[in-house]
């Protein structure tokens, strides 16, 4: 029976379908334009997707716990405008502001998780409701204004490079990804999140506090969303109510492409991150080869379908 432990070549290929797709895209774009495979552009791709990657970690945790959060984009928006307003208008010190962003988002996340439990409802529809609420709050805070002139030390997080080569935000991303990967993959609490998402009833009967685990997943995801809001606004050196909006879609897309199950209980972080960069490289490469906006949409859709095809080649029909 040990054979079951070893994977067949087919399964390995399916497992590696996303990296293969990534490499294929890199090769394709490198052939199409010599501007693609340059240190500068590769750094660009990294930097452009830092906040997406961090956000996708949040999306993944929530999805594994059996939920789905559509309000993440507006959580980011609320955090970004609030923090930038605090710093520029009220002169709040940077560390306090950072803390505020993270705490605020973790509260918003907890609110989502808590409401879903209280309302005994699907998280997707609950967060569709809270999304509208957060959207209103974000505009009420920002009054449709853009906040510029953020403190240097704040922008440092999003713009500076260590040794002049490695961007700080990329390092932050790597640290976060490693921590999240470790917690979800190796620790008991990570395992419980998978269990709560896989079969809540079984979890309950095994003595897990499923409700608590689910709410906690939202809380932790909120922390990541807060960090993501900081990274994004620090990179652009400004924030308005559109900051981060729609990012949950990119996150969900990356998660599902990488095989995170919509019904919960399944998902692997490294694949999610690879999927984020597949999408990122695609967007970057298409601009570099100067594809028009309209064909870009089509190309993106096709690539998504291709990737689904590769990932699911060996699986059973649903």
């Amino acid at each position, binding site marked *: *029976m*040990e054979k*079951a*432990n070893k994977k067949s070549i087919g399964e390995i290929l399916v497992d590696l379908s996303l990296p293969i797709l990534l490499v294929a895209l890199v090769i394709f774009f490198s052939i199409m334009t010599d501007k693609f495979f340059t240190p500068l552009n590769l750094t660009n791709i990294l930097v452009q997707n830092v906040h997406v990657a961090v956000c996708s970690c949040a999306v993944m945790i929530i999805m594994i716990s059996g939920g789905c959060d559509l309000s993440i984009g507006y959580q980011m928006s609320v955090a970004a405008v609030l923090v930038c307003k605090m710093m520029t208008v009220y002169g709040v010190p940077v560390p306090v502001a950072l803390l505020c962003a993270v705490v605020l988002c973790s509260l918003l996340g907890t609110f989502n998780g808590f409401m879903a439990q209280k309302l005994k409802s699907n998280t997707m529809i609950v967060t569709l409701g809270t999304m509208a609420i957060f959207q209103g709050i974000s505009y009420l805070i920002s009054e449709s204004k853009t906040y510029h002139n953020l403190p240097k030390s704040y922008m440092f997080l999003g713009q500076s490079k260590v040794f002049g080569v490695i961007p700080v935000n990329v390092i932050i991303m790597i640290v976060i990804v490693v921590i999240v990967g470790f917690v979800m993959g*190796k*620790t*008991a*609490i990570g*395992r*419980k999140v*998978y*269990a709560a998402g*896989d*079969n809540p*009833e*079984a*979890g*309950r*009967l*095994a*003595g*897990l*506090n499923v409700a608590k685990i689910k709410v906690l997943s939202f809380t932790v995801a909120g922390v990541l969303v807060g960090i993501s809001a900081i990274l994004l606004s620090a990179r652009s050196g400004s924030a308005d109510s559109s900051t981060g909006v729609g990012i949950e879609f990119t996150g969900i897309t990356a998660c599902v492409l990488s095989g995170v*199950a919509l019904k919960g*209980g*399944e998902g692997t972080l490294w694949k999610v991150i690879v999927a984020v960069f597949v999408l990122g490289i695609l967007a970057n490469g298409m601009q570099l080869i100067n594809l028009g906006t309209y064909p870009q949409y089509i190309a993106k859709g096709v690539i998504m379908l291709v990737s689904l095809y590769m990932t699911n080649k060996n699986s059973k029909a649903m």
Partner: protein
Amino acid sequence: MNSNRNERKGGVLTEVLALKNITKDYPGVKALDDVSISFEEGEVHALIGENGAGKSTFIKTISGAIKPTSGTIAYEGKEYPYLEPKQAIDMGIAVVYQELIQFEAMSVADNIFMGVESESKGLVVNEKERCEKAKALLAKFDCDVNPATLIRELSIANRQIIELAKAMVRNAKIVIMDEPTAAITVSEQEKLYQVVKQLKADGVTVIYISHRLEELFEICDRVSVLRDGQYVTTVNIEDIDKQDMIKYMVGRELSNAYPPKEPAQSEVVLEVENLSGNGVEGINFQLHKGEILGFAGLVGAGRTELMHLIFGNAKKTSGIIKVKGKEVHLSSANDGMKAGIGLIPEDRKFQGCFIDKPIFWNISISDIDHLTKGGVVDQKAEMKLAEDYKERLKIKTPFLKQLTSGLSGGNQQKVVIAKVLASNPDILIFDEPTRGIDIGARHEIYLLMNELAESGKSILMVSSDMEELLGMSERIIVLHEGHQAGEISKAEFSQERVLSFASGI
């Protein structure tokens, strides 16, 4: 109510658990009606009753899966109105549920150790140590499943064993098993008995629910009987025989367990030649009109796979299937139905029924096209059909619009059978047809099978219940690791012969 008797007998020194005056109401049903039973330390206490008698409800009350409407639970002297699952676990109560409630997408090891405190103390999960522990546990049942395998890749039998292992891991003081033998074969059953005896020797209380009355004599000390949600009696196993048990359960005596049947006709309705695919290879047999053909094999022998192949729900790689002399090419279950084959799947929850839909809905769905007037569902005809099967199969339910999920396990199985019968196929495949069905209803199903066969239908029956297989079949084909190990005719029937083929000797 005769709860005094319990207390007098068990209360002497070592009563560990007592349920007092438990009542559980569901909309339209009283699943438990003022039931009091007590359990002693180190005893194996069987709980029997017909399908829907309230056994599962009773043990779910103990494990905290549900809250009783009224009554109390006394554990080690303290009384509780209800328990939370976590609380029950902490008290040392471990449960093997009748329905397999498992983490489908997680590994065997994760399933076994989930929620076990000692395992989650450290920050990091020690995968290797876990796997070894899991292996050791599974070895008790002679099961060599790799602990890293995902649950959803296992057969029902193996999943059942995983549940047993899960109950063992916590070193519980009370182990409850709800029909643990329903889905496993003789050899695993033996292992299970040994495990139960070991538990008993260790002073663990075992609450054991089963419809296989014979096995109770082997392992149990006392038997409590429930009927229609009410407590009937508790007796020492020495003081009772099978007939009495049935009488307590059903309220009347049952005649011969395996009713006689007219022999099959000579006409061949199904011919399988050299069939391979879906994990089985080189299968050859003929099925005659009016015949009940049994299939035996150990867990994982590929019986279910073969049935799905014949039904068209899996792809054959080579070989020929002929229905009534004509070769058929089945590429879907739909084709199978069109060719006149019907399948009662072994896994009722995922394959058998629409659990969140009403009973009548389930029964009519496979024949829905014939229940219409110009495309519109004829609700009268539909209800009549459902009513007919409710009567015929004695489905115990207050009303046919009840959701199937609210039925007891055995009654759900009956709904699945009714669903397939409603489409009126000529060849019926019964995969573990009596899994979880009580002895009375089982008898009804046997009668039904005979009646179907005598009316000219032919039946392929897969069962892990050796006695049933020997009692019902006219011939038995034995599979071993996907191959046809042998064929046994009625005259040569014996348990030993089947087992020797099945284990590949």
